[in-house]
């Protein structure tokens, strides 16, 4: 079972697709949750997920806006998608009937 922050990171990386790397994932998490994500939490979680086979990372291109430094690119694996689906479904199931549960149709309308 994934942890909350692991799920957030995976979801942000999946949403970014080919453009998923450290800084972009941090900004995506901050934008969607309104919470600042520390670099320490981000990179240690990426490592943990990579060890579990949920993420694949490699060194990406260096850009001028990064002072000529390389990016750590992130790719979400099929195994990770399966685990994220499991986590999402578990949250939906456990939340059903709770006072704060929102009907997804209502949420997205």
């Amino acid at each position, binding site marked *: 079972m994934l942890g909350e922050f692991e799920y957030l990171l995976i979801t942000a990386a999946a949403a970014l697709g080919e453009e998923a*790397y*450290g*800084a972009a994932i*941090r*900004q995506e998490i901050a934008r969607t949750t309104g919470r600042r994500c*520390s*670099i*320490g*939490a981000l*990179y*240690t979680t990426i490592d943990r997920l990579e060890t579990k086979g949920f993420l694949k990372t490699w*060194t990406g291109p*260096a*850009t001028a*806006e*990064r*002072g000529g*430094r*390389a*990016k*750590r690119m992130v790719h979400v694996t099929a195994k990770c998608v399966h685990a994220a689906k499991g986590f999402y479904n578990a949250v939906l199931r456990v939340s059903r009937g709770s006072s704060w549960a929102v009907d997804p149709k209502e949420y997205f309308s």
Partner: protein
Amino acid sequence: MRGLVWTVVATVSNLLESHERDAVCGDLVECGEGAWRSLVDVLGLVIRRQSQLWKSWRPWVAGFGLVVPSSFLLMGLSVSVSGTYLHLTRHLQPSGLTDASLIQLILSFALLLGWSWTGGFVVGSISRRTLWLSSILYCFPCLRCLREFHIPSMSKFCLLLFLAPTILGIERGLRIGRIGLNAALVFAIAITILALPLWSNPAGGNWRHPSPWILSCVLSWPAWYLVAVAGNRTRDALIAQQENS
């Protein structure tokens, strides 16, 4: 990334692996983070990484199983070698150079080199990212013994005779990580043969003056550890080769 705090950030980030340092510093520049916030972020990551490293047995063995005991023992051996050298040069005529003590000096010096180098190599190879602590642990016994060393006829630096081969060993350990099985076996057998006379020496026996065989075990295990690592690697390579063929 300019200014004093940024310099501290860059310095602290040196404790990260090079590829991670690049990614982290690039992220900070790209996001336009402030210097203090960046410092907190990088420090946080460094602390997390260091705490992960200490979950492994390697830095503990390197620090407290090798550096602390071996530095005391090697300082003792350094003084012994220096004393033998001074005795030879001061009290013997050139004709006395064939004396058995000259052979003893050469053998002791070779043993000191071997023990120091293999110990340094193992420290460098198993505690790469915690080498800062191993270095501090080397310093404490050295400073303490330098302070308490009072032999008028000898320089205090006689204590540190082992330091140069140890540093060379650490440097090689950091650079290549492991040596081949044949080289490791040659080292280990040579060191064991050189140390054999110690086993028959009845001197010592308490914690201040440990028995020579304890000294020999504590200082010789890195050489046999290198043999075990090289042997495992060779066996794995053979298995992989058999599976491929």
